[in-house]
């Protein structure tokens, strides 16, 4: 510690500090402790130290699950970016009043129960559902298409649930951007495409990275989308943890899996801080 940097805590931090210590740190300690204990005979834990819960993750089955979850998360992030960035970019070009309306419309579905909204997708996609009925009525297909219960349906559900996070992050970043810089590069002879690649994209990078983190992190943990849309045929880490905590009754392993997820998440955020050069987690929103 350097002497000049005098330690000072603003008084307003204390309630936040105490709350975090009591209701976040304490449960966390509990989870960490459990992850190093042995499973009880019926459930719960017995007070005996072990590393087995972490070693167990080396099993190839879990490796396959992690890889699949990673694949789903990366794909979801990529698609939300490809859909969300242009959306955010175009919204920024709208007149101010329309802009806030569009953002409000985008946010509104957030207040409706997410399961209700997924139910809407089920009605759309199922074999006697809306899309198939229209296709059959138009004579485009004879047999109903199997749109539900496959990998594609899981991705659709994920993208749908998480796209708003990506859009909002990109939007915040693009809106703050100084358009004069883009104009300058155009004046210097850059084509619109080149100006976008060399100026707009790098300038809005913090928002993009923030959006990617905000989509990536929950997409690893969401469990009900793969259950409902994928016919439970895709096991993601969220599903795995839930099974371990309930039917498999192995709390320690569930806790260990969560710890691993947490470490990976913190790692991603650390990389984000390095890449974006920001020391503020705040840009995540």
């Amino acid at each position, binding site marked *: 510690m350097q002497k000049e940097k005098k330690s000072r805590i603003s*008084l*307003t931090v204390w*309630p936040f500090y105490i709350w975090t210590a009591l209701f976040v740190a304490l449960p966390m300690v509990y989870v960490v402790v459990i992850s190093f204990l042995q*499973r*009880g*005979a*019926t*459930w719960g834990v017995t007070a005996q130290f072990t590393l087995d819960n972490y070693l167990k993750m080396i099993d190839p*089955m879990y490796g*396959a*699950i992690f890889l*699949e979850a990673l694949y789903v998360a990366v794909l979801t992030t990529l698609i939300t970016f490809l859909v969300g960035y242009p959306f955010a970019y175009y919204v920024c070009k709208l007149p101010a009043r329309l802009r806030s309306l569009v953002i409000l419309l985008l946010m509104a579905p957030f207040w409706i129960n997410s399961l209700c909204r997924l139910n809407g997708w089920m009605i759309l996609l*199922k*074999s*006697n*559902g809306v899309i198939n009925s229209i296709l059959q009525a138009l004579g485009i297909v004879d047999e*109903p298409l*199997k749109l*539900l*219960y496959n990998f594609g349906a899981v991705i659709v559900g994920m993208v749908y649930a998480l796209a708003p996070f990506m859009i909002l992050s990109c939007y915040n970043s693009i809106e703050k951007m100084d358009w004069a810089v883009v104009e300058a590069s155009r004046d210097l002879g850059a084509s619109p495409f080149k100006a976008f690649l060399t100026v707009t994209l790098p300038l809005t990078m913090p928002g993009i990275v923030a959006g990617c983190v905000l989509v990536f992190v929950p997409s690893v943990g969401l469990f009900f989308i793969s*259950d409902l849309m994928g*016919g*439970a*045929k*895709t*096991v993601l880490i969220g599903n*795995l943890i839930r*099974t*371990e905590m*309930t*039917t*498999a*009754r*192995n709390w320690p*392993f569930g806790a260990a899996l969560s710890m691993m997820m947490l470490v990976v998440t913190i790692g991603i955020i650390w990389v984000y801080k390095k890449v974006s050069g920001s020391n503020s987690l705040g840009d995540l929103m």
Partner: protein
Amino acid sequence: MRRTFTKIGLIALALVMTLSLFTGCQPAEDAKELVIFTWEGYVPDDIIAEFEEEYGVTVTYNYFTNPDEALQRLASVDGGEYDIVINSDYTLDIARNEGLMMELDKSKIPNYENLNPVYMSQFYDPENKYTVPYVPGTPLIIYDPSRVDVDITGYADLWDESLKDSIVLLDYDRVIVGLFLKMLGYSINETDPEALAQVEQKLLELKPNVRALNMDTPYETMLSGEATVGLMFGSQVAWVYNEHPDFKVVYPKEGMGFGIDCVFIPSNAPHADVAHEFLNFICDPEISARISMDENVMAINCNLKAEPYLSEEYLNNPALFIPDEVLGEKEFIQDIGAEYAEQYAEIWNRFKQA
């Protein structure tokens, strides 16, 4: 600075005070009350309303979706808070061993004698001290003969190549792994590694035929035409059959599994007297018949005197009336301990992942 704090402090104080108002306004202690903890719709609304009226009780209904989660929740309050719990049989075994059940005072349940002994004295309560059977059931196969070319008579037919991508299975390792163990000639609760390896191999071979796995609403997968064959709980089969009497219900020839969801009173139930009244109420033949026929329950009736109150449609539903000689020796899913429960779960994960 100080002013900021006084203001924030005042806001916080106001919040806490209104908060205590809300948490404080609980009904007076002497009011008759009953807290039920089970799946949504498992005790029909009209039954509850009638009980409230007749006994002057206010019923509070608490929901769960997962039997294991419910069990853990019950353990966290040490068998208190709830007065009536209805849960799956294997969780009952754990609940009893953990001391979470209250011994029933049968003198307060005159209707207890109406219960069909066929559904009693099971592994989770061999001396019938703690539980009242509520919904018995056996997993069955149902299929749409107009879209399925094979004649399905047992589990083994599910592996037929023509059924590619068309089966919906319960998303429940204990039931499906157990039934396929039975198909291979083992016990439903087999823990022999050789047998488990065998059943896992079979499951992996079945995967291409599986359209979806669904624990709670497999019947919707059938009704929407998404799957043409289903292996699910009897009451779920009964729903499908009700909508589509042309579908075929199969009693698998390799033998059937069996399960009973039971009612019990937790060991520290706050309103045990009312809970006994409730048990007596649901053991009444007419009430029992109405519960069995309710569209959200739809299950085998376990009351000896209920038959006169059961409808024609109910009696003709093959998923609800299974001749005893077909059912044969009922084998229950029992608790196999956490270690094997996990092995089953691992098999199931590998099956899903395949």
